[in-house]
């Protein structure tokens, strides 16, 4: 089975001033699948994730070498519109970060930024996005209430709805369930399965079981290097590298 490649990195390195945080990563992420990135804290997986929609640009002193190809186009080449990249490649952070405004305004934020003003159209987008994020039924009666009043799990789904509203193609998720209780976390995983049909998802997680449950592909990072990348099944049942085996069996990390 050959799958279309959504994102490919070629010899991707990231430096924070003198420190090389990522070392020559080459990886191909298939479309309409969930790719999990695992590895101990500080191994570079979050840094890697942030290079995929240029969120590393925000960090002072960071420098990227190599290429990140989104549908074959290098997002680091000169003259690329960063906003356009981030619109196509959405990001969900570890800690849910709803904006301090109403639920409705949170979801409408992206479309409004990109120039949409008509209330009717916005209403439709808000409802569709909230439904797709499995949150509509819980919030439909309080869209005008502040998003900060939602529970952690609801907030994380709201953030996903907010990202859905700009119609991205890829979702990057940086430990999206680590701040959630098991039930909310389960709901989030169900949601990921739903989203997988239409989107390409890359998820960083510390939770081995979660990686095994939700992902089809899995990359193991260690000290800024990608040790192994393969189908999740293979990584977990028959790892090629001794270090991967040690990590997933819990011998370190």
């Amino acid at each position, binding site marked *: 089975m050959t799958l279309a490649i959504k994102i490919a990195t070629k010899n991707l390195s990231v430096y924070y001033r003198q420190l090389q945080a990522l070392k020559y990563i080459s990886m191909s992420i298939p479309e309409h699948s969930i790719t999990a990135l695992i590895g101990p804290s500080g191994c570079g997986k979050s840094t890697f994730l942030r290079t995929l929609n240029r969120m590393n640009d925000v960090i002072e002193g960071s420098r990227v070498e190599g290429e990140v190809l989104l549908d074959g186009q290098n997002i680091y080449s000169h003259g690329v519109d960063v906003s356009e990249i981030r619109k196509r490649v959405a990001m969900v*952070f570890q800690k849910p970060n709803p*904006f301090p405004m109403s639920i409705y305004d949170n979801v409408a934020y992206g479309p409004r*930024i990109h120039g949409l003003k008509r209330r009717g159209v916005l209403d439709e987008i808000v409802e569709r996005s909230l439904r797709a994020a499995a949150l509509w039924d819980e919030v439909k009666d309080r869209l005008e209430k502040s998003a900060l009043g939602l529970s952690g799990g609801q907030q994380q789904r709201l953030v996903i709805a907010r990202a859905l509203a700009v119609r991205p193609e890829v979702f990057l998720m940086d430990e999206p369930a680590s701040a959630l209780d098991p039930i909310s976390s389960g709901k989030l995983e169900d949601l990921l399965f739903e989203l997988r049909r239409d989107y390409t998802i890359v998820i960083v997680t510390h939770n081995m079981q979660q990686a095994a449950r939700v992902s089809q592909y899995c990359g193991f990072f260690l000290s800024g290097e990608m040790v192994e990348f393969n189908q999740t099944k293979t990584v977990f049942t028959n790892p090629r590298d001794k270090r991967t085996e040690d990590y997933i069996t819990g011998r370190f990390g």
Partner: protein
Amino acid sequence: MSPRTEERLVKVVLWAVAAVVITILLSIVVHVMVRGIPSVNLTFLTEMPRRMGKEGGISTVLAGTLYVVTLSLFFATPIGVAAAVYLAEYARESRLVSAIRFSIESLAGIPSIIFGLFGFVFFVLYLRMGWSIISGALTLALMILPTIVRTTEESLKAVPSSYKEGSLALGATRLQTIFKMAIPSALPGILTGILLGTGRAVGETAAVLLTAGSSALSLPRTIKDPARTLAVHLFILSHEGISMEKAYATATVLIVSILALNSLTTSLLTRFRQRLMQ
């Protein structure tokens, strides 16, 4: 001393200190109001001052205050907020930025009479604006600028970076993130800064006395006309012994407006926070 006695002692001391602060405020307010309130009524607020303020009301003085303060905010707010946005969102630590910060700090520490002197020499004489609303407003604008810059910068910096990252991650540009995310989130803080500045401007005497004029008691018609503000009026009434009764009445109006301004700030802030926590 046992930890429990220590705890109790500290509590008593802190309580006493708080009591002293409240007593000072209350005694000033009560002292002024007891003498002022009997003379404050609708006629006092709506009549023009007569015989140098010995008789009549303070209508033109109220108008003068409103004009000078509003105009000074008109100048200071955009410049102050823009400077704060630059400092909080764009500036990287450099020598220029430290120089700007140092200037703002220093500006905040300069006594108002110096601002008055500068305004008099620069706006009134050199720029030939004369004793006028515009000279007074520009001088006050310089004076309240640091307050606005500092509070705005602080409140912009207090906006969690996760909000800004979230906005950028949705494809918003830096400028959109500032205007649609950072400034709205920081709005209560910015408003507080503006209201604090307003309070300072309303109560300012020396700087206004030297720039907006002091003898004008008629209603100003243009911004080139001189104007007398509440604080200046109060100063002249008492200093020149024109009428202590009117002075106290003016002081009462001044105090009440500043207290009103302060409680407006507080209630706006509380309401804003409540709305967020619903």
